């Protein structure tokens, strides 16, 4: 069973449901979310591999950070 981060998935779901594409998230966009330091850093960097390691759902990673994928 893969790791699941509820805070990561919660913020990514909110963005995905608005059909927004991001390269990275800003501090302002993350304000009010209960993310830990590693999660904030990965979102701020748009680090899709790290987000997967930290427990973000891959469908949400793909939806939000689509432009980060080479394919």
């Amino acid at each position, binding site marked *: *069973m*893969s790791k*699941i981060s*509820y805070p990561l*998935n*919660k913020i990514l*779901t909110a963005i*995905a*449901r*608005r*059909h927004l594409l991001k390269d990275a998230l800003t501090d302002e966009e993350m304000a009010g979310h209960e993310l830990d330091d590693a999660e904030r850093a990965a979102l701020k960097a748009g680090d*899709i*591999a790290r987000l*997967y390691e930290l427990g973000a*759902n*891959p*469908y*949400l*990673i*793909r*939806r939000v950070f689509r432009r980060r*994928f*080479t*394919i």
Partner: protein
Amino acid sequence: MAEIVAAALTSHAPLITGRPDVSKPEQRDRLYAGFHELRRRLAATRPDLLVMFVNDHLQNFAYDNLPAFCVGLAASYDAPSEGGAKLMRMAPRKIGGHPAWAMALLEGGLAAGIDFAYSYEIESWDELSVPLHFLMPEGDVPIVTVYTNCAAPPLPTPRRCREMGAFVGGFVRSRPPRERIALVGTGGLSHWVGTPETGRINPDFDRRVLDHVVRGEVEPLARLTRDEIEREGGNGGQEIRNWIALLAAVPGWRGEVLAYEPVAEWITGCATVWVHP
């Protein structure tokens, strides 16, 4: 007894309609031809309802509330919504639902021990929008949806999906004889989406699945574990649960593969299959 007049299985992927330009023309044309032939055969059966085994992609059911199985009671479905339409490059449209029929399915399931959740509002992503773009461009036949969680583990087991599908098949046959019901399952085949292996496709896995479908064998598919599917078919391969449910609804029926193309540019092993007695 109502008649199951048709059954079809297809892949779904937003790039099938969203980026036809990036695929190899010969692969795209063969797959589109498969969709068109499915449409022709489906229309010829004159269904008055499509029951669709599909899965969400966290558009509707996210980590605050994740049903294993959910019956759509929506009066209409965004298939796609304006937002989704941009990515899938199709016009936004509404497809009519059939809330009364869906409620009967829901109540029947709960009475039989299939603990469906239900939803009055569903925004379709590619699970409905892309297959229906090809299969029902007129959008003139109402749909009832049965959503299975294939995208946010832990997932219902393939075995449980077989049981759910068998219930749906039995329920359809218990309906009044005047009803003409078609079944459609969408999803798969192998694809890795959003993971470090994004873009991988495993044609060997896909052919094994299709071989079972052609022989009408649901049991070997129902015996697969989540880990086996993940390893061989990727996280997107988990969507074969929708295929398993459909096959279980029509025991003894066999698949005829109209098209199979591992389309690297669409990051999906894509198939269209007609399922018949």
